[in-house]
């Protein structure tokens, strides 16, 4: 299997997992204390879906790391920053200012430069 297909799979699972985590924490009652926060999180379906996605993403990522230098492989995850920001904007209805998009662009650009050794 192509290493780039593996990277794309890892990226998709990780992005989905991140957004599901946020959806889970959004459901916690804001008056909860720390143990209460954990207990509530553990009772949500989103949490387990998120963990499943993140574990799958991580296992696939381990395979990627086996074949690739870590500082060469990680820049591909930079695309995840755009994906997560996009989903935050449209699915979670967050306000993403031009400055924040600029920051995400610089992060992605910087990580691609790191990949050119």
């Amino acid at each position, binding site marked *: 299997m192509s290493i780039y297909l593996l990277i794309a799979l890892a990226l998709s699972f990780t992005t989905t997992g991140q957004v599901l985590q946020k959806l889970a924490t959004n459901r*916690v009652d804001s008056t909860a204390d720390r143990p209460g926060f954990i207990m509530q999180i553990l009772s949500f379906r989103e949490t387990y879906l998120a963990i499943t996605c993140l574990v799958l993403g991580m296992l696939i990522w381990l395979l990627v790391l086996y074949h690739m230098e870590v500082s060469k492989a990680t820049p591909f995850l930079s695309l995840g920053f755009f994906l997560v920001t996009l989903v*935050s904007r449209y699915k979670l209805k967050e306000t993403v200012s031009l400055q924040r998009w600029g920051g995400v662009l610089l992060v992605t650009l910087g990580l691609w430069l*790191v990949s050119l050794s």
Partner: protein
Amino acid sequence: MTSRRNAFLCMTASILLSSMAQLFMKASMTLIAQHNAQGAVLLDIMLDVSVIGWLFVGLGSYAVSLVFWLFAIARLELSLAYPMLSLSYVIVYIVAANWPLLNESVSWTRTLGIFIVILGVILIAQSENRGEEAGIKKR
């Protein structure tokens, strides 16, 4: 519920731990690759304490990092917190270049990239929508 300031502290802890996780897992994979190069059989690899050790410390760091992360994003917008995770690549780059086991290459292009990432994170940090409660239910 944690304060916004504590949420940033949780985020910092999470970033440090996930960087450690990446590095430890890579250390483990590097040791396996070394065993393979020497023609070792699977059992030899499984019996090498350092291979399993680094892998478990790596996975453990990820698990703890996840808990800190949940406390962080409960208070922060995902579009603010998530891009800041890129700081872990800055940490990974610096450590991977200086850890003899990993011994990864350094170049001016890569170092420039690292500075651009840091600049991006500063921009994102300053784009905080103050007073906005990141989609948390109101009391």
